[in-house]
């Protein structure tokens, strides 16, 4: 067999593989940021309920939050030991969720009960709207990512072979 052909085949397959890996990684990122946004929304509602019914200190509230996302547990723990605003940038949020949560953390604990409940409810609504948008665009984005990956792979295969 022609060694040049073998090299071209291996190169094309390697490029196709890396495209597939990139597409998979992108899909994982989309899912992770969606899960993190959902968890953030659940957390904000939890804080709102805790302030409304128990008036606990914010560190106790964060410490008692039981997240569904195992990967986020260390971050919530760190937030309960320091402050949410110090840790919020470490969360795997997408840009819009990050902005909403940064605003939320900068106002959290700085007002009285009614204003804090209102803050939680407003933030929760914003997050829900954003999650709906993320969810509806998720499958489209994944489809586009797959299509781009297949297109690039095919292009290289055609070009090389």
């Amino acid at each position, binding site marked *: 067999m022609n060694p040049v052909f073998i090299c071209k085949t291996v190169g094309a397959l390697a490029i196709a593989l890396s495209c597939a890996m990139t597409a998979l990684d992108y899909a994982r990122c989309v899912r992770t940021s969606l899960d993190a946004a959902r968890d953030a929304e659940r957390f904000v509602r939890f804080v709102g309920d805790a*302030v409304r019914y128990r*008036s*606990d*200190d*914010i*560190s106790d509230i964060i410490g008692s939050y039981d997240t569904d996302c195992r990967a986020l547990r260390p971050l919530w723990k760190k937030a309960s030991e320091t*402050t949410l605003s110090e840790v919020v940038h470490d969360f795997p949020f997408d840009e819009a969720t990050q902005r909403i949560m940064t605003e939320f953390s900068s106002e*959290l*604990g*700085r*007002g*009285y*009960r009614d*204003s*804090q409940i209102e803050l939680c409810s407003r933030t929760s609504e914003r997050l829900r709207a954003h999650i709906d948008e993320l969810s509806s665009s998720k499958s489209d984005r994944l489809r586009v990512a797959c299509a781009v990956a297949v297109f690039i792979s095919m292009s290289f295969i055609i070009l090389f072979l």
Partner: protein
Amino acid sequence: MNTKTTICDNDALSPLPDNIRADVIKAASDAGLRLDDVTDVRLRRGGNSYVSCGERSYALPPITDARFDELIFTLTGGSLYAHADTIREGYINTRGVRCGVCGRAALDGGRIREVSGITSVSIRIRRDIPGCADRVHAILRRRLTGVLVYSPPGVGKTTLLRDLIRSLSRESVQFSVVDCRGELADACRGTSADVLSDYPKSDGIRAAVRSLSPQLIICDELSGREDADAAMYAHSCGVPIVATSHAASVDELKLRAEMASLCDARVFTHLVGLYREGGAVRHIITKT
């Protein structure tokens, strides 16, 4: 009286944010004071802030709005809403240190609903003075009886109660401490006292009488009709009470109808006045 004093906490300034704490330490050091000498720290939003040693005060750098907001955030443990009740009463209790605060009051039906825009924080650094309660302790050793300690603010009523709690505990007296401001609880650690923390004073006194069978009740700062009624209730149930109140003399004390009625009913058999004389605290004891 033993006048050797020690700051109660390892660091009584620990509730302050690092930058303000550093300013206080620097001002004290520039004035040639040891941190142990500092008695008060008064912090004001944008205004003149001071660190005091007795009657002498030394200026601190001005505190900007942003730094003052951070101060309130730190003092409330990042949970302003959780301190709304005590802020309405004029203080924040943080890590066992009581910080007096004031700001703009919003009223609802003539009562304070909330205090917003806090502009001043006053931290009185608490000290333990072993033996300062010896004279009150001597009265109680003869017979457990009602004692009212009175003085103007800042002379040492709470310090006396804290020392008394330790002294009584050494004699295995079964007593209850109603600690609605969190200033006595740490003195009760490891003692024989039952501590009713954060109870409203009148509720705490009634709860102690009903359920804890104390030989004596100790509480800080009786003020108002409800507190007086609760003290009267304890007395009528045969439980003597040791309490404090603001007044510079017995005459001033009796200007308040509820305190006059307590004295007339002999709820307190001894009135102990504290006053400062040349830096030392002296006692005037009056039998009723």
